[in-house]
């Protein structure tokens, strides 16, 4: 699909996109060298499970703020939103705001209780007063579903983007991403992963800010002059809601998935265990929200900049989805070297996100399933660490294989699917177990199972699978994202099943868990 378009476009616009680019390669190898250096340094400090999963709780609030931003700002949000804005104008802003509003929810509802009640995974929080085995198995299913779908989307998106930007073959790109990510996670654990995120966040924010500055410099440093140039050139409709919001319920549903899914993403939740205490967890969300909000404001400037300076037609000619808007803008403003830099930043972005995902998936397998369920908490010394590293290797290989299997498939829906599962399976159970005395083991498990199964089922019957992929004319379920139904349903099921069952240990443990939650005694 992309290839014929690409050859046409390179002939028409003479862009260096898709040709091997010496600057991009140099930046890219520099990034790989630096991050492997970090991994080598981190490996010497990664000897225990606490160091492997939680970087020895040594990460500062500001560092964790950057790392959270690094985990969250995916290539989809950088290239995708800039592309969406460059071709549709205002509608892209709906996404920018949606991706940000989950963060206040993370801060208010989960960050501090999570830090004070758990050790390595969000299932630890559920297991403080509910029965270990059932809640850990259900939470691991929710975690692994979220992680796998997110990984596939990143791998496939990453493979195509890298092919488009560097001219590497798709399979080579996927294997390089997989190999580097496995090295970071297995040898350097959370410490290396954290620093890869920090380096990536700094590069991405720096690159986007430089690009936005160069755009604004052409418009007297006034964003309004830029927007008005866009509306003069392409019509006032560019500043108004367009046809992306044809179905309001769909927009609301996606908004709910983004807002509550962020607070259920396992790789985000896991980051709160890397800081020394709840206060640092709290501050780190404040930094992250500032950085991520700033970043989405920048993507809005970049999108409009690309629209006015490069033009929607030229952007769509290179990639139908508009994903090359930011790289094309970089090339327009700074020539091939700047294009190379932005391309390398996009690659770094994908690498960092997949590393975080793989680590959280490995923690669910080793900490929740192996040590707590199979070994009933009695693992031999050093065993859990070996299992965690093995799990990271297996997940990394699975990600590479699935990335190649899904080559050329439309996987954009998998990101919103991952958010919908996180919002419907992980978030309700977490909130119920933290804040509601009557929550029982059965209630939490029913909520997680129903959230995962319901989301998967409704996505299967939705237009994204039935119409876009299976080419049927209609879909039984009308919405592209099921969150508007599955989030309330998952809460209701958790509440009803809890009320119908008794779990004396859970109810009796509530006072103790409230105390641990606020004074952090257990965590200390």
């Amino acid at each position: 699909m992309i290839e014929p378009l690409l050859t046409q476009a390179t002939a028409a616009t003479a862009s260096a996109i898709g040709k091997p680019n010496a600057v991009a390669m140099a930046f890219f190898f520099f990034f790989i060298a630096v991050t492997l250096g970090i991994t080598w340094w981190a490996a010497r400090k990664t000897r225990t499970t606490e160091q492997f999963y939680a970087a020895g709780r040594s990460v500062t609030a500001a560092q964790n703020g950057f790392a959270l931003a690094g985990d969250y700002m995916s290539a989809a949000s950088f290239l995708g939103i800039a592309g969406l804005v460059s071709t549709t104008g205002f509608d892209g802003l709906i996404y920018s705001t949606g991706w940000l509003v989950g963060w206040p929810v993370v801060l208010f509802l989960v960050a501090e209780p999570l830090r004070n009640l758990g050790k390595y995974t969000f299932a630890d929080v559920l297991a403080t007063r509910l029965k270990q085995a059932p809640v850990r198995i259900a939470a691991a299913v929710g975690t692994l579903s979220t992680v796998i779908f997110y990984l596939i989307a990143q791998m496939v998106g990453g493979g195509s983007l890298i092919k488009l930007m560097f001219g590497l073959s798709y399979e080579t790109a996927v294997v390089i991403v997989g190999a580097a990510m496995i090295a970071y996670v297995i040898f350097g654990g959370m410490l290396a992963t954290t620093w890869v995120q920090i380096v990536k966040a700094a590069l991405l924010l720096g690159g986007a800010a430089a690009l936005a500055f160069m755009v604004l410099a052409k418009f007297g440093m006034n964003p309004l002059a830029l927007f008005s140039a866009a509306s003069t050139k392409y019509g006032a409709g560019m500043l108004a809601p367009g046809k992306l919001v044809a179905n309001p319920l769909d927009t609301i549903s996606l908004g709910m998935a983004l807002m509550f899914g962020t607070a259920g993403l396992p790789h985000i939740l896991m980051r709160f265990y890397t800081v020394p205490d709840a206060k640092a967890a709290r501050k780190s969300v404040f930094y992250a929200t500032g950085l991520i909000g700033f970043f989405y404001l920048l993507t809005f400037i970049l999108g409009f900049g690309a629209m006015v300076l490069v033009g929607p037609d030229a952007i769509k000619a290179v990639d139908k989805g508009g994903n090359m808007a930011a790289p094309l803008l970089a090339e327009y403003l700074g020539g091939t070297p700047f294009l190379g830099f932005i391309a390398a930043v996009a690659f770094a972005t994908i690498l960092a996100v997949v590393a975080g995902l793989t680590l959280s998936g490995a923690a669910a397998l080793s900490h929740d399933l192996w040590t707590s369920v199979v070994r009933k908490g009695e693992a031999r010394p050093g065993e859990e660490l070996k299992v965690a590293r093995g799990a990271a290797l297996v997940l990394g290989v699975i990600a590479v294989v699935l990335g190649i299997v899904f080559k050329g498939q439309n996987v954009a829906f998998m990101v919103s699917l991952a958010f919908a599962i996180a919002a419907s399976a992980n978030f309700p159970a977490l909130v119920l177990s933290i804040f509601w005395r009557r929550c029982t083991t059965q209630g939490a498990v029913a909520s997680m199972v129903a959230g995962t199964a319901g989301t998967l089922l409704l996505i299967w019957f939705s237009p994204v699978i039935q119409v876009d992929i299976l080419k049927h004319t209609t879909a039984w379920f009308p919405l592209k994202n099921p969150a508007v139904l599955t989030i309330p349903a998952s809460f209701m099921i958790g509440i009803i099943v809890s009320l119908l069952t008794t779990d004396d240990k859970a109810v009796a443990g509530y006072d103790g868990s409230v105390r641990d939650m606020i004074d952090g005694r257990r965590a200390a």
Partner: protein
Amino acid sequence: MTSSHQTLAAARWRIAIVLTAIVICIYFGFIALIAYQKEWMGSPIAPGLSVGILFGAIVIVASWLLTWFYVWWANNHYDAKLDALKREAK
């Protein structure tokens, strides 16, 4: 000391619920306006600025302000009470 722990936990819970409700109202209010007041959201306020773009920027700034307010409250009021509780426990 459990009852004073519970009072403090309840205070945090109230603030958390109110702030979460505000974020939900702001964001879904924005989405609802886009869905049902398209014309008005597209109307210009100044050259290059529509009502919708202004509101979008407000959603981002409001998210910042709400997180700032919570962190300020927690750092000053919540932590002070928590420290007092911990001293009492010793």
